[in-house]
């Protein structure tokens, strides 16, 4: 694993974290640790509880059980400190389309209280990284989906977060933009040692992560490096499995409804058996 210093505390520590909406158990007590500087992939079918978990980690939802610490701060009791150290890129856009790219970034810098003397340089670097420096004075409304996503990434990084959460950052983008986004992630980790916590549905992207957790029905069914996961299901029938095989193996091949109401049932037991068997 690159860029992980043994002395630095973990970027994310999650202990028995759970979230219940009324009767529905969206996240059923998950535990994991993400090391500082790691690229951590968070996979799972729709409705598995990934977004709810991210929302709890970035203080947008309150856990109903368990604890989580981001960069050493508790997500329930030290929300302000958590927010200072994280950046977010959501699957849904969160830019102000009426404003220009530069106005969006300036507003962000001010919301985060970034020293005004470094803002112009930092802004330029981020916009150049995502190849939007020339478009900085155009309204975001006029941007394509890929440009918007790149701008969101520039904005999410503007305040130099310790942990960057990316919720399906490459969904709906062309291959060029997808690979560009991965280049930014690499460059960023090198320059600032940022920890990346990302969800994705693209299994080829999961391969690029240091470690991958697969979540299903509110629980983490398996967590390991992509290599180890593939090795765990290697058999006579599947000689060289892909991440797709891994994903299907651990989450089953049936198509899911996006709602999680059927989560807390016997299938979870089955998942546990599968995890045990895989070890």
């Amino acid at each position, binding site marked *: 694993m690159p860029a992980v210093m043994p002395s630095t505390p973990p970027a994310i520590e999650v202990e028995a974290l759970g979230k219940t*909406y009324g009767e529905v158990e969206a996240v059923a007590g998950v535990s994991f640790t993400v090391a500082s500087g790691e690229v951590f992939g968070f996979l799972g079918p729709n409705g598995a509880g990934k977004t709810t978990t991210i929302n709890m980690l*970035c*203080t*947008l*939802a*309150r856990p109903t059980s368990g604890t989580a610490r981001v960069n050493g701060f508790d997500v329930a009791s030290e929300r*302000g*400190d958590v*927010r*200072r*150290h*994280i950046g*977010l890129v*959501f699957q*849904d*856009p*969160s*830019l*102000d*389309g*009426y*404003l220009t790219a530069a*106005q969006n970034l300036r*507003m*962000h810098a*001010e*919301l*985060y*209280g*970034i*020293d005004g003397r*470094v803002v112009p*340089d*930092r802004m330029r*670097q981020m916009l150049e*990284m995502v*190849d939007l420096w020339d478009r900085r004075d155009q309204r975001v409304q006029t941007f394509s989906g890929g440009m918007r996503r790149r701008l969101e990434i520039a*904005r999410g990084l*503007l*305040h*130099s977060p310790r942990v960057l959460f990316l919720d399906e950052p490459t969904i709906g983008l062309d291959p060029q933009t997808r690979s*560009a986004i991965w*280049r*930014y992630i*690499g*460059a*960023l980790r090198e*320059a*600032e040692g940022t920890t990346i916590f990302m969800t994705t549905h693209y299994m080829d992207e999961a391969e690029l992560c240091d470690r991958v957790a697969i979540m299903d029905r509110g629980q983490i069914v398996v967590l390991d490096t992509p290599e180890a996961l593939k090795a765990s299901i290697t058999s006579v029938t599947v000689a060289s499995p892909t991440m797709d095989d891994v994903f299907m193996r651990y989450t089953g091949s049936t198509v899911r409804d996006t709602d999680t109401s059927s989560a807390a049932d016997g299938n979870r037991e089955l998942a546990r058996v599968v995890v045990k068997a895989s070890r």
Partner: protein
Amino acid sequence: MSATIADVAAVRVPERSWRSEGRAVRVVWRRDLIRFADDPRMILTWMLQPLLFLFVLGPGLQSLAAGSTDGVDLTTFMFPGVICMALVFSAIFSAASLVWDRELGFMREMMVAPVSRWSIIVGKCLGGTTIAVSQGVIVLALAGLVHVPYDPMLLLGVFGLQLLIAFAVTAFGVMVATSITRAQTFTSVVQMLVMPMIFLSGALYPVSGLPAWLGVLNRLNPLTYAVDPLRRLVFDHLDIAESSRRTLAPGVTWWGWRVPTFIEVGIVLALGMAMLTVAMRQFSRTE
């Protein structure tokens, strides 16, 4: 395309403090102003209705009303009411941006920023107040066209009342916006409330001699206590007979007792603060 960041500018996010909250208020406030200033068509659309009442409906009804206004032009009478109307429309529409922010996703950017949700609401209220007052000032500038003198004390007084009314109505709009999740619902709730409130406030007719049920609704309507001080202030500066002043700007009475201006102003201010508090609470809830 090169994705290398050499010599990246070091950035630190400071701990939360009063200064960061002040900044947040300013950011939200300025954003509303930038958007408002960037779209002049929006200004025109918002001005259209009040002006329609003042310059089309007013003169149109003049012939009907001529006998009962003691020679006072109907548009002069309606002027303070129309100012109030302009304030209400633009304050409510500014508050609606909160609903759009949620629908278009921008809300999340503010929700995860290391600032208090309260500051965001305060910033929104300030933004709405500023925009609404700017509309009110435009209407006020037309005073001469409806025979209202440009007396400095009158202008200053009206400006002060405009600030108060704009703040209270924005707080109302923000409160509705924070308790509603869909933009469509906001529009229908507002339509259901705003026009009846304007009609019942006495913005367009004198509140003396109303049928009993209408009189009760008028006294219960918070907007009544915003329109009345405005109208009496304007009428104090008109050169007209005392009798017509009494008929056209009689003031609001509770069981025969005339409610003094400071109580009216107090009611509007207290309601504004109360609605602001409710809005802050609703907005701070985390699921």
